[in-house]
């Protein structure tokens, strides 16, 4: 038991000696990334509550109508029901100024860990994905959106035959349209011609 205790203490100390990742920093990113899911969950909960409330009100009204019917003094026209008005929800990115949108795009780039495979300004992963410094001159916003949400839509020159390090196809599942808009706006600002960003190659027929 003493031996176990000694070994246990040693491994625990070694575990503390390695550099530790900042949990607070990670949580900041996670909070941003899960915001939309949290809102969805809250919306579902709120919808569920509202449904319950409305259901109770409908029951109450039905009971009242029945009561009026039985009393014989129901006049539908006198009810004067208002017409339902529906407004399309506004995109949150639509309210942002272009500068803010670029800033938000940078955060999306960070949160989605694009730097693991791509380089901007000489910083980031190598080899896995192309450097993006001049992507704003080589692709349109629509092409970039298509690439992010459908990675096989086109390839960067020289990256056609990637199998293991191919671009993930998860982004439609984990990013909102607003985030995509912001990310592409940021990428479109990258126009450094000194860096050899590979040209897009579109498969024949696309």
């Amino acid at each position, binding site marked *: 038991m003493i031996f176990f*205790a000694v070994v*246990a203490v040693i*491994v625990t100390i070694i575990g503390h000696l390695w550099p*530790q*990742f900042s949990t607070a920093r*990670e949580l900041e990113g996670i909070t941003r990334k899960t915001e939309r899911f949290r809102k969805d969950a809250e919306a579902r909960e709120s919808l569920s509550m509202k449904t319950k409330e409305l259901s109770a009100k409908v029951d109450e009204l039905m009971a009242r109508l029945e009561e009026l019917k039985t009393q014989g003094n129901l006049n539908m026209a006198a009810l004067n029901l208002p017409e339902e008005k529906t407004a399309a929800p506004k995109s949150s990115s639509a309210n942002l100024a272009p500068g803010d949108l670029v800033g938000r795009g940078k955060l999306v780039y960070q949160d989605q*860990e694009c730097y693991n495979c791509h380089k901007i300004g000489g910083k980031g992963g190598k080899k896995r994905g192309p450097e993006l410094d001049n992507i704003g001159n080589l692709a349109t916003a629509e092409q970039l959106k298509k690439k992010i949400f459908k990675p096989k839509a086109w390839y960067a020159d020289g990256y056609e035959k990637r199998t293991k390090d191919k671009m993930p196809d998860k982004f439609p599942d984990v990013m909102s349209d607003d985030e995509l808009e912001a990310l592409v706006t940021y990428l479109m600002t990258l126009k450094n011609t000194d860096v050899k960003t590979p040209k897009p190659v579109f498969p024949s027929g696309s």
Partner: protein
Amino acid sequence: MNRKIISWAVLCAVVLLSATAVLAQIPDPKQIEFPYVGNRTAVWIVAQLHVLFAAFILGAPIFVSVCEWLGIRSNDPRYDRMAKDITKVSMVMYSLAALTGGFFLFAMITLYPALSAWFFTHMFGLVAIAYPLLFIAETLVLYVYWYTWDILKGDKKRRHFAIGVVLNIMGILILMIGNALTSFMNTPVKSPEGMEMGIREYLENVATLWDKVNNYSWTTMNFHRLIGNAVFGGFIVGLIGAYKYVWAKTDEERAHYDWMGFVGNFFGVGSMMLFPLVGYIHASSFYMYDASLGPYMMGDQLSMFWEMQGLMIGTIFLSSAIYMWLSMRRIILPETYAGVVSRPLVSAVLSGFLPGLGHFYNKKYVAGLFWLVWVPAWAVGVETFLDSMEPMSGPMHFLILLRGFPVIFYIMNVSRGFRSANDEPMARPRLLNFPFWWFARFLVWLDQFSLRNVFGVMKFAIFVLILGNLVWVTPHAFVGAVSELTDETYSQVAIPEQWEFLSLMPAKNTAAALMVLMILVCYILYMRAIKVGRIQWGKIGFPAQLLLVLVAFCATWTMGLMGVVRSGIRKYWHIYNVIPDLTGDNYTPTLAHSAVVITILSLVFYLIVSLAILTTLKVGEAKGKGCSMYSWGRGSLFCWMLPCPRRRSVKAESSL
């Protein structure tokens, strides 16, 4: 026996009914907070304990069946005795695996009701039908296996072995079901190419149960965990052998348990040699599924876990090698035997291979040649220094291979330390470019002049330098995000270009391959020594038993560590890209926190295992005491949980 089976069946039924009843009554599940440790750690604790017990009861039968088969083939009764001892311990472990499994299920249902409901809804046949049924079936087979041990002897032994094979098949099937759930959480099946459907929509409307089971990492996880369990089983057998050796009263017992410890360790290390290969294949399945999982696992938040893993695996291999060295001391060898290997050649090949390969891979031939000269020189220097510490003679020559381990450690450390070169968190490497070779030569020259006191100080100094070098090359800090670094700070933390080759896969693969190669050559030399010499079983020293205990502990700890990595790959998702974790526990646990939890769990596991070994194999064998569990009192947990063939007879005797 019937009462036990019925009890377990009732327990399973109650758990399932409770689960369905609870889930049916939760239209809008609210989060319950587990006191003190929180929900995630609470589930972590029960899940990890369950996995440890389950790994033993799946790994031990593999070992037992192999032993039984070897016993049949060789007519050596020691194999049968060992297999029976292990099965006896497995019975207790089996009950504990079931109990912790029940706790795990309860914890999931109460603390993560929405996730549990998802699994019950989408994988009902697997979770609620196949798994419990197989569990009950395995219980039945295990009892049949145990109770027929003394009945199916002699000519009927093969039938008993066949029952063991059936037991193993059931165990593997249970393992595969468990793996289906965990691998699904990591790599849930996506819509096939051309279908253009989101993952959630596909899972809800199109994917079949088989699609969900046969996900991207299921097969590789099956292989990985199967081999892992075999390794674990072997090391725990080594632990049992060590305990029994220390408790042994007679020479015969010491000889048997010395042999048992050796066989357990041999089985564990032998199985472990396959680990790097299956590990890489398993990791590659994550890369194939989603390339962003790779950097997260190997170069981001979880990268330091791999540093720790390298250290633990290195300790396991090194301890096993030292165990063999101690084993060699009890082999009587003929005068003509020589296990000599050219020291400089071994060092040069081992240490030069890696950097040379790395540079040739990168087509930097001149630099590659430089490394091929410099690093071997360094390695030979260390070799010479170590060699000078203790004169070697006769059979001890083979120890040169053990001496190569510091070199391997160095390479492992460097290659892992540099792993982050391509990724966000980067290491700050600094190396001591010290001419070790000449320094070591100087020390040897000093030694020849018998300046032993000065030599002792110098030896200590060089030892500190080697250690310092090792510490220096390890990563010093994480960098939060590359994009936030200025050009100046980036250059400070970036890996120097001339060292970048060490972060390449060939470098890492070579380090792992060398580690395996070293231990393999050690075993070959050992087996050669056994062939020409005579082993004095029971003459091994006490430190060797401590090494067996250390190896078992390290194996358990590493399992816990890799469990955190496997689970952590999901990032902030319960099921990756499908169900987000919106609780406050959705961040990656730090290595420090994980180390504390894993250590506590390993200690708890070893406390229980030690108690199980003590009750089943020590107390039970005390003469005239009857069943081991009975000796702990009728009402004890083990007494209730285990079938006790002798208890009935003891009760009958007492009633007379």
